[in-house]
C-alpha cells in the first residue's frame, strides 16, 4: 500500500497536453506530396511500390484511406515525390477527405445540431469487425493515463444502448457483418459512425479477399467520420475526434500547451 502511494507520488502527472509535439523520428505521419510527384513518372514509381493501390498515377493522388503507412513509396522515389513527415495530424472526415492531391472539399465537422445535442459528452461503442487488433489497441490506448480520452468527455461504453455512436475497426469480415449491423441498430438515433484505420476505410491490406466486405465500413453503414492510419497513432485519433466535434485542442480545458516550466516534457510521446 505504502509502496504504491510512493510510486504514485514519484511518477507524477504523465498525461500528455494537447496540442502535443510530434512523435520522434522515424515516425511515419502525415505524408507530404512534393512538386515532383505531379511531374514526370514519379507518381508511377510510387504507385508501383504501393501494395494497397493507394496511389493513382493518373490523377496524381494518394488515398490515405488505403495507405498503410509502410513508407515503400517514399523509398521507391527516394523521397522526391512523397515524404512522410512526423506530424500525427492526418486528414479526417468523409471518405473523399482522405484523398491527398485531389480537389479541395469543405471540412466535415459534425453538424451544429449534433454538436449541441452531444454537448461536452460523447460515448462510443467499439466494434472490431475483422481487423488485426492494431486499431483496437490504439483505441484502447486512448483510455490510458497518457492520452486520457475521458478528460475530453469522450469515453467507451459496454452497451450500444448507452452509446451516442459506433467506433468501428477492420475491413468488416463477412462473419462480423451481421453483428456490426445489429450493434449499430441497437444505438438510439441520432447515432454517429466513426471508422478508423485503412481497413475500415477501404479494406486496406485485405481488400479483395473473399472473406471481407467490398468497401470497408462504408459499404455496410453510413460513416460520419473516417480516420486514416495503419493503425492511427492515438494522437491522430485524438486530433480527429476533437476536430470532428469542432473542438480544437487549444480551446480545451486541460489541453493547454506545455508549460514553460516543463519544456517538451512529453514531446516524445
Amino acid at each position, binding site marked *: 500500500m505504502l509502496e504504491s502511494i510512493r510510486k504514485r507520488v514519484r511518477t507524477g502527472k504523465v498525461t500528455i497536453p494537447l496540442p502535443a509535439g510530434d512523435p520522434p*523520428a522515424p515516425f511515419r505521419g502525415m505524408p507530404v506530396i512534393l512538386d515532383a510527384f505531379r511531374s514526370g513518372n514519379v507518381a508511377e514509381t510510387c504507385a508501383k511500390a504501393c501494395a494497397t493501390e493507394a496511389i493513382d498515377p493518373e490523377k496524381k493522388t494518394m488515398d490515405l484511406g488505403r495507405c498503410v503507412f509502410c513508407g515503400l513509396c517514399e523509398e521507391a522515389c527516394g523521397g522526391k515525390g512523397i515524404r512522410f513527415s512526423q506530424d500525427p495530424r492526418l486528414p479526417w472526415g468523409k471518405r473523399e477527405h482522405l484523398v491527398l492531391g485531389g480537389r479541395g472539399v469543405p471540412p466535415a465537422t459534425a453538424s451544429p445540431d449534433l454538436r449541441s445535442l452531444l454537448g461536452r459528452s460523447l460515448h462510443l461503442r467499439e466494434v472490431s469487425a475483422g481487423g488485426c487488433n492494431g486499431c483496437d489497441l490504439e483505441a*484502447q490506448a486512448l483510455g490510458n493515463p497518457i492520452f486520457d480520452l475521458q478528460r475530453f468527455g469522450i469515453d467507451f461504453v459496454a452497451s450500444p444502448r448507452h452509446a451516442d455512436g459506433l467506433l468501428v475497426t*477492420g475491413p468488416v469480415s463477412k462473419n*462480423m457483418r451481421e453483428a456490426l449491423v445489429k450493434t449499430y441498430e441497437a444505438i438510439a438515433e441520432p447515432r454517429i459512425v466513426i471508422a478508423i484505420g485503412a481497413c475500415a476505410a477501404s479494406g486496406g491490406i485485405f481488400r479483395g479477399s473473399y472473406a471481407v466486405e467490398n468497401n470497408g465500413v462504408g459499404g455496410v453503414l453510413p460513416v460520419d467520420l473516417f480516420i486514416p492510419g495503419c493503425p492511427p497513432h492515438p494522437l491522430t485519433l485524438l486530433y480527429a475526434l476533437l476536430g470532428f466535434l469542432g473542438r480544437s485542442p487549444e480551446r480545451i480545458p486541460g489541453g493547454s500547451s506545455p508549460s514553460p516550466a516543463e519544456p517538451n516534457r512529453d514531446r516524445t510521446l
Partner: protein
Amino acid sequence: MRCVHTFDLGITAPLAEEAFRAFLRETSTGGDRLLALFAEEPSSGRFLLHAVAGGSAPGRFLHACVEASPRSFRTFTDVCPGTHWFEREIYDLFGLVPEGHPELNPLRFHEGWPKKFFPLRSAGAPAPDPRRGYRFLLVRGEGIHEVAVGPVHAGIIEPGHFRFSCAGETIQNLEIRLGYQHKGIESLFPGGPGMGKILLSESISGDTAVGHSTACARLLEAITGRPADPSAERWRATALEIERISNHCGDLGGLSTDIGYLFGAAHFGRLRGTALNLLLKITGNRFGRGLNRVGGIGPRVPGIAPEDLLGELSRLRIEVGDVGTTLLDTPSVVARMEGTGRLLRHTAKTLQFVGMVARASGRDVDARRDFPSPAYVESPPAKVLLDTGDVMARARVRFMEMRASFDWLSGILAGVSPADTPAEGGNAPVSGRRLVVSVEEGWRGEIVHAAVVDGERRITRYKVVDPSFRNWPGLSFAVQKNVISDFPLCNKSFNLSYSGADL
C-alpha cells in the same frame, strides 16, 4: 539458419498412412513437437497433408506428407490430440472431412456461407459434400444453464463467442466459437515473394507485427536466397524482445483491471506505452511495422542509437520492476490469482500448447532456444519455467520473461553478446518444388510460417500458425470448475489473438 528450413518436395515421397500416423504420434510423445499440419492441393483434385515438426535439438526440422482422397482422411486426433484444430481448419479450407474427428464443427465458416464453399479447394476438384452445421455441446443435468457471450464483447477487444454451461456459478464447460475475424489471409499470400507479403504478415495479429513479419521475412529470404546480415538480425531480435515487453506490460495491466487493482492497471498501461514508443523510435511505428524488408530491415531502421536505447530500456526496467513487484506482492492480488484458472501440465503436453501459457504449466518449449535465429544462437534469453499453471503462474511468467528480455537486450545492445557471427547460409539451395518453414518465438509463443514454393519461386500455398491457434482450446480447460465471474481474469491471463487464430 536454424530458424528456417527448406525441404525439397521433389525428393519427398508421400508416406503411407500408417507411417504418417506414426510420425504424428511421435510428436505427442517424443522430443520433437508438432509445428503445423496443413493441406495443399498441388494439382487439381489431388490433396496432400503436410506435417512439420521438430525442436528436440536446436534447428531440427522434420517433415512428412501423405496423400488424402478428395473427400476425407482418417482423423489423427486419436494418436496426436494436438491436431484437433488443424483438422477442423483443413475441413474449413479444403472440404476434406477428418473421419472420426471428436468435434467436427466448422472453425471459421458460419451459417451465412454457401454450404459448398471451401476457399482453397480448386473448382476442378470433385464436388465436396456440403459443410456440416455447427452443433454446440449440450450439457445436461439439474440446474445446468447456459450463458452466451459475444461476438461483441464489453470492452475494446476482438469478437468471439463463448458459450458457458454452468451449474450455479461454476463453469462445467466452455465452448469457444471463433471465426468472426476471418479475413482469408492465407488466400492472399500466393504469388511472388515480394514486400506485399511482409505487409500482410504485419496484419496477421496487430500486437505481434514484429514476430509475424520477422518469420515471414526470413521465409521470403530463404526463397530469394538473400539472408539478412547479422546486424539486421540483431535489430529484429531487439524489436521482438521489446514487443514482448510491451505486451507483457499490457497484460499485467489488463489482469490488474480485471481484478479492480487500479494501481497496476494505470502504471502498466503507461509502461506498455513507453515500450511501444521504443518500438516507434526503432521502426517508425508503435507496433514495429516497417521493421522488415525482404533481405533485411527498413532503410530508416533503427531510428535510435543503441546506447540511447540502452539508456531508455534501463529506465523502463526499473519501473517495470517496481510496479511488477508491488503488483505480485499485494495480498489481495495474489488471493485472486493463485489457484485460479489452472491449466494442468498433462493437458498442456497432450494438446501441445506453446509459448508462455505452456511455460507457466511446466511445458518447456521456446523457439528462441529450439529454433534460434542468428541473434539467439549463442545465448538466448534465460529460461523461465513455472509449473502451477494458474493465473498467478501466467502473470509471474510474464514478469520473469520481461526481466530475462531486459538482461538479454542489455547484452546485445552493449555488443558483448557474441552474436556477430557471419550470416549463416541456408541449407543447400533447392530449385524445384519445395517447402520452406520459418519459426520465431513471438511474445505469445511460437509463430510458424510455411510456404510451398514452385520452381519459379512463386508461393503456391502459404500456411500461418499463430500461437493463439494452438492455445485457444487451453482456455476451455483452464476455466473448468472455476466460477464464471473469474472468466475475464482467466481469459486475460491467456490473452489470445482472435485475428491470429481466425486468419
